[in-house]
């Protein structure tokens, strides 16, 4: 129900529940068209459209991964070059110390290692994880967000937050809940 003056705790936002991904996507479109700006959707499965509708920005992760991969390649090559040419040059059958072709495999493996670690850690850190507490978990129904229900939250920092509850009721939500801070 609408948050009333007697609500003593500060609000994180209001949350609307939907039965299907289609309903949620529909509602998210309407919400953004209505001019709300601090909006987030929560779903049990990835829905590619939602990020385009709500956040409109794509992640910088691929660029980070490229940087990580190139760093790995440079590290691998530099390690082998330094050890074989500068630190302990060893003549094996008259072959050049800097026989770069033999350095390919470890450089290649470190490229992949650094890139993969950047992808995983980058995804986690950019998402603000690990995060032990978040207000959305205060809503009991939210435990279904990882099972079979779809949720849309308009946050209290939104300039038009006053209209949020009424709007979500009108947008076909199955239920609208206050999210305590």
């Amino acid at each position, binding site marked *: 129900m609408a948050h009333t003056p007697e609500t003593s705790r500060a609000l994180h936002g209001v949350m609307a529940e939907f039965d299907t991904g289609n309903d949620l996507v529909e509602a998210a479109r309407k919400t953004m068209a209505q001019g709300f700006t601090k909006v987030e*959707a929560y779903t049990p499965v990835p829905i590619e459209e939602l990020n385009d509708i709500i956040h409109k920005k794509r992640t910088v992760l691929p660029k980070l991964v490229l940087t990580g991969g190139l760093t790995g390649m440079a590290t691998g090559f530099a390690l082998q070059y330094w050890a074989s040419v500068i630190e302990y040059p060893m003549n094996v059958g008259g072959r050049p110390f800097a026989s770069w072709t033999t350095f390919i495999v470890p450089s290649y493996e470190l490229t992949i290692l650094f890139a993969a670690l950047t992808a*995983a850690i980058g995804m986690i850190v950019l998402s603000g994880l690990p995060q032990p507490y978040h207000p959305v978990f205060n809503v009991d129904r939210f435990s279904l967000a990882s099972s079979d229900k779809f949720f849309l939250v308009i946050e209290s920092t939104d300039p038009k937050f006053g209209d949020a509850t009424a709007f979500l009721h009108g947008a076909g939500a199955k239920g609208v809940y206050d999210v305590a801070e």
Partner: protein
Amino acid sequence: MDPNIHKPMALQQTPVILPGHDFETVTETIAEIPLSKRFPLGWIGLLIVSLGLFGMLHMALGVLVMTGIGIFGTNQPVGWAFPIINFVWWIGIGHAGTLISAILLLFKQQWRMSISRFAEAMTIFAVACAAIFPVFHTGRPWLAAYWLFPYPNAMGLWPQFKSPLIWDVFAVSTYATVSIVFWYVGMIPDMGTLRDRATSKIKARIYGMFSLGWRGSARHWHRYEVASLILAGLSTPLVLSVHTVVSFDFAVSVIPGWHSTIFPPYFVAGAIYAGFAMVLTLAIPVRRFYGMESLITMRHIDNMAKITLATGLIVGYGYTMEAFFAWYSGNPNERFMMWNRMFGQYAWSYWTLIAINIVMVQFLWLKKVRQSTGLLFVMSLLIGVGMWLERFVIVVTSLANDFVPSSWAHYSPTRWDYMLYAGTFGLFLTAFLLFLRFVPMISIFEVKTLLPQGKIEAKH
């Protein structure tokens, strides 16, 4: 509309997920196992057997460390034997998991979703078993760090970066790390599901910690999907490189039967072949025991059998070409090596592997065979044996009878060789049983994306 409706009967396929599932039933079916309070008797029984084998591993390793590698049957000239055979065998098994989770993801093969989680678990445990051998065959594993990792010894000498053996260290350790990372990242949303469904506070806490506070927000999912795709894209060249580098251990040397350009593709195909056989070995009893037949359907079994057949045929081509190269090279040592493999002291191992990997796999052409889980189970076990024998043949027959007859010898493994190998099964099975019990064995959120509920109708 049913996509099968216009197809002739013969082309109709079992769906990837049997009808009757929705988001709730998928969550329930999969999450129920790690969250239940019950420990099934069959599971406990198998765990006890596995722990017994695991204990044997510890004993064998303890005796190895206290006595030295003299307890192995390894001799001169067979200086490489069980440890490398078992290492290559286990690492090969792992390749199927990465193929399913990475390569099939890039090819948008949706059927992979039900089997990717436990195939990846298989990969990680197989790599763990494999890693025991290179570390412990040194006899002094605490010194292995100097010999394997890029770290100078007391004389300031570094590992030889021009050697495939050191490439192997980079390849395998990267493979192990990336596999674990990929597996864990794939599990984060499901850990959130378990956290939200857990009935006890402790379970909710533990799964909550592993979920890192995952909420499934649009931003989370977007980054998550990008990261998964990138990880799949990185794992694909990685998995192909791993067995290529393993094959370099042999191919870069000058031993007859090892010095061959066909080794990299032939090793990679063999790895996937053995790995898919292992996935079948595990999937067939698991789906029966846990009642997962509606999620791991006959379609999965059929597809896996087909991949086993396809890679088996590549392996068969590899055997043929090995024999052809040996003859066509005109090199007397190469020709003798091949003749000796077929008719020498280890001929039994060569012909057994041919019987399994070339003859027996042809039965997989028959749909009847691919639809019989019993037959497939037996065949998958035999393929495991066949692929082990392949490595035995490559390693031992090439070394035992090399260039100079005066240095020839017979190799036979000791009981410690066998115990160490059997012991790694203890490690593998123990880890796998714990995985089945405490982790969702099928990716919950990925399977949901296959259901109509998870599909978004295009809007214009």
